[in-house]
């Protein structure tokens, strides 16, 4: 059982790390601000989400596990809102860049 849980952690944390990599590659390679925003939100939601889900079996306590998931939910709410705000800033041209 413990080996299975460890496998779960290894697979999910690795997958989360891959999404962080994808977020960085997108942030660096995509041509404009709006597409980069798209890459960023993947790291926010999936990268952190998979890391959190992977870590849940390792913390040894239901309450702590719930707190871990709460961290992820908070990041999803604020990440989604900030993505909207940034997108509007870019679109309305308040941003001095191309």
């Amino acid at each position, binding site marked *: 059982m413990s080996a299975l849980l*460890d496998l779960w*952690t*290894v697979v999910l*944390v*690795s997958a*989360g*790390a891959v999404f*962080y*990599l994808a*977020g*960085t590659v997108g*942030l*660096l390679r995509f041509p404009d*601000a709006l597409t*980069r*925003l798209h890459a*960023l939100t993947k*790291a*926010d939601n999936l*990268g*952190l989400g998979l*890391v*959190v889900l992977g*870590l849940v079996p*390792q*913390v040894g*306590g239901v309450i*702590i596990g719930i*707190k*871990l998931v*709460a*961290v*992820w939910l*908070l*990041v999803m709410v*604020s*990440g989604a*809102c*900030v993505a909207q*705000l*940034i997108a*509007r*800033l*870019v679109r*309305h041209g*308040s*941003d*001095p*860049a*191309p």
Partner: protein
Amino acid sequence: MAEFLTGAACFILLVVAVGLVRLLRGPGDADRLMAVQLLGTGSIALVLLIGVVSASPALIDVALTLALLAAFAGVALVRASTTRRPPDNSQ
């Protein structure tokens, strides 16, 4: 297990640190802010990983604080860039 999680932490740290190149290059405020945002999310994952490796649940409170305030820099930028200021005659 601790070895693997520390390795994952190293990987994520390096990856989001490379993302900071966008902070250096810009070109716009939004691009730089996005690099900070990515580093912020990455830091939360790193805090959680360190917390599990060192078996200290108090670290989750640090992650909770970071997560709660993750939106702050973005809100501050949007607010400051869109506020119409009255003419500054205080000087």
